[in-house]
């Protein structure tokens, strides 16, 4: 298994380098450059040219590429041109921020999604199944940004106006002044700030997982080994959660591999709406500002996450299915 993992990781290296090379040239070919934000009639073209020189943007593109690649291979991502900070400082911050959001979303996606799917499968064609199907399709087809704005409107603004006992925060990661409070209060404040963005990010995907789970479970619970398990007197709970669920997990694990990179990199709208300073909004800002080093660094991290996400799926396949492990 370890040999297999090593082979897979080594195989990913040329893939990553290829991705980075393509992104480097695409982002540099886009109109504008990092000095564009200084453009104004008050700033002379000579100053802009000097800025370009200071940033090394006046060099031929292939030289810029070779220099960047050399730094990258020595582990130096350089400075963000937009934030003026070392990228080695920025990335851990935004990754950790996104990770908090993603982990809570993943819990929503898989716990809620799988539970709903199981209930639907076990109670096939019941009223609950039909209602949950309609609800799942409703949330699945709802645009994330609209849902996020509705959550903000109802649970923040209207909740406040209608005097609800709990008003959820709709912007940022912390309430102003929380830093003066104790650790418990800070944690509670952070969790409260997570509820709306994590729900907005996770609910649509959870609905999708529920549909997959229902289908997978239905396929499994009609198989002979489930009948056998029931016949030998096992409780229904054991039959469903131990025998059926494990066998129905394989397609869900595939989804995990697909969702993980999406959640880490693709939460742009949710992060923007809820002012959550994570990877998604960082990537978008970097692209708009033509912050080349930060675009490259974030692209690298996202590419690595995609590779690792797929690898994680493969490992989890082996965990739930001994046949794959044997192969």
């Amino acid at each position, binding site marked *: 298994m370890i040999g297999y993992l090593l082979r897979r990781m080594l195989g990913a290296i040329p893939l990553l380098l290829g991705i980075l090379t393509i992104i480097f040239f695409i982002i540099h070919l886009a109109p504008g450059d990092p000095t564009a934000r200084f*453009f104004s009639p008050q700033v002379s073209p000579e*100053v802009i040219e000097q800025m370009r020189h200071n940033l090394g943007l006046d060099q031929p593109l292939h030289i810029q590429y070779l220099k960047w690649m050399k730094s990258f291979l020595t582990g130096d991502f350089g400075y963000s041109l937009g934030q003026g900070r070392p990228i080695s400082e920025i990335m851990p911050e935004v990754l950790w921020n996104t990770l908090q959001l993603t982990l809570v979303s993943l819990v929503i996606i898989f716990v809620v999604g799988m539970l709903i799917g199981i209930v639907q499968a076990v109670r096939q064609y019941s009223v609950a199944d039909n209602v949950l199907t309609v609800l799942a399709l409703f949330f699945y087809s709802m645009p994330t940004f609209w849902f996020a704005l509705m959550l903000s409107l109802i649970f923040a603004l209207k909740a406040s106006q209608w005097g609800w006992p709990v008003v959820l925060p*709709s*912007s940022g990661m912390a*309430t*102003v002044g929380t830093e003066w409070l104790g650790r418990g209060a800070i944690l509670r404040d952070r969790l409260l700030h997570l509820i709306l963005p994590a729900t907005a990010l996770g609910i649509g995907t959870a609905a999708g997982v529920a549909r997959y789970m229902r289908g997978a479970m239905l396929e499994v619970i009609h198989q002979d080994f489930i009948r056998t398990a029931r016949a030998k007197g096992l409780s229904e709970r054991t039959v469903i959660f131990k025998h059926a669920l494990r066998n129905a997990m394989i397609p869900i694990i595939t989804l995990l591999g697909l969702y993980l990179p999406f959640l880490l990199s693709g939460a742009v709208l949710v992060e923007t709406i809820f002012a959550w300073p994570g990877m998604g909004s960082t990537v978008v800002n970097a692209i708009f500002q033509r912050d080349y080093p930060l675009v490259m660094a974030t692209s690298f991290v996202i590419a690595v996450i995609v590779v690792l996400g797929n690898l994680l799926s493969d490992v989890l396949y082996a965990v739930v299915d001994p046949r794959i492990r044997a192969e």
Partner: protein
Amino acid sequence: MRNPRRWSGWAGCALALAAALAVGACSDERQAGGKKPVDTGGTAVLGELVEPSKPMPLVWESDLDADLVDIMYMGLTRPAWRDGHLVFQTSEASPMAMAWHYEYLAPDSTAIRYHMRSGLRWSDGKPITARDVAWTYRTLKDPRVASPRQSDAAQIDSVVAENDSTVTFHFKRRYPDMVFNSSIHVAPEHVYAGGDPGQIRTHPTLVHPEGGRLVVSGPFLVESWQHGQQMTLAPNPNFSVRPRLARIVIRAEKDRTTALTEMKLGHLDFLRPLGFDQLQELHEQAPNVRVARQEKRYYEYLAWNPLTVPAFRDRDVRRALGQAIDVPYLIEGLKMQDYAVPASGPYPPIFKAVYDSAAMRPLRFDPEAAKRTLEAKGWRDTDGDGVRDRDGKPFRFTLLTNSGNQRRADAVIIVQQQLKAVGVDMQIQQMEYATASSRFYKHEYEAALGSWGVALSPDFSAMWSPRQTFNITSYDNPEVNRLMKEAASQPTEALASPLWRQAAQKIVDDQPYTWLYYYDQLFAVSDRLQGMRIDVYGPYQNAWEWWIPADRQGTPGTGKPQ
């Protein structure tokens, strides 16, 4: 913002610029009237859609940076906007001024001597001296620094520190902006001198300004900074006046709808920018929030590019297109009624020295006259398809504007309909900001909708002289060129202003743009934040005078005491 920002960039950049008229109650006036004592303490929470970046006089990067520089660094004098004119305050009128007196060395001299007050200290306790002033200007002129304010030093020959408190500026010639150009914020020599000037932007105190590491001279320093979330400013203990607020928190809001929700919830004391389309919602749902404005320093325009559309080479055709657009209707349609007026030219009315209301009037909406002109110029609808044509070619062009700006997105649709009514087919293209502006400056567009923030100095030659980057319509009128050159060489404002007015008049006659409207920049301000003055120098300019009544000093939205 003060000196740093005399021009806005094109289009979206105008969002965070400065314009005119005091809006909030001035705390000085309150005190002078003796009506109500002001309280100290409390935290003001300001919402901004951009983040601070480099709040340092030589290398600021954004309009918000420029506003922060304004309250973190002193200059020799403190420019202010009074009754449509710039005035330069000494330390007798403003605690932000380092000099208590300045004088020209002779009546027609090209040198000004400044006398600095004693006892000035940087936030790290080191004395502020004339050498800091001389170093700041020396560094500003250094091409390796590539400061966006470098042009302020273009006419400065030398800056000599005669002793610790006396500094003399020698200019290359006498011109109206001599005091203006010598009033920029001063940076500390002892912090930045000795390093590579080309790498000043990555100086450790700029990468990590928090904890007071960024050495400042003004009333506030950076206490903490959670990137992507908020920057907290705290009083600088070495500034001569103690700010009334205990802290200012600048929150990075990323979405304008969420930011407005935060404002309505009372979580913010101030929000910038506020869209015209958000006004009604704010009025209806947030009675405790007032709308403040920087008055009409901006105008929106349609630019006609004669290089790509031959029809635009004809002044009468450009004029006819302008006559076809009902600007008052446009203003109403964009819900800007109380905050915009039809524009007539490159100087908004707030600039009293150069705006000429008698000579420059907005183009009158007259579609019949527009049709007659187009007919006379040979543009007729010969094939009955509703679009005029000439020599077999329809009058059709594409208007480019940036995406992400709802006002412009709505405006171009109204313009499209109005031009269609006179038989002109305008297609609409929206592009991401950097891409659109790049095409503007390279003249790779046919028509454009954009906006400018107008400089405090009347010199607009960077926009209307031939071969200048910002002359996006390739405008070239020898008479205007002569007038601009003559105006720029005048020693005083009184002599220069009539020439700038004449140049503006001729540009308006030529209509390289159709000027649409002068408009305000809007802000939302909560009723608990008092004493904010807003004029062309922006909303932050007197932040040390802001205050919050003692009974309302809990953090907004939480009620937690500070």
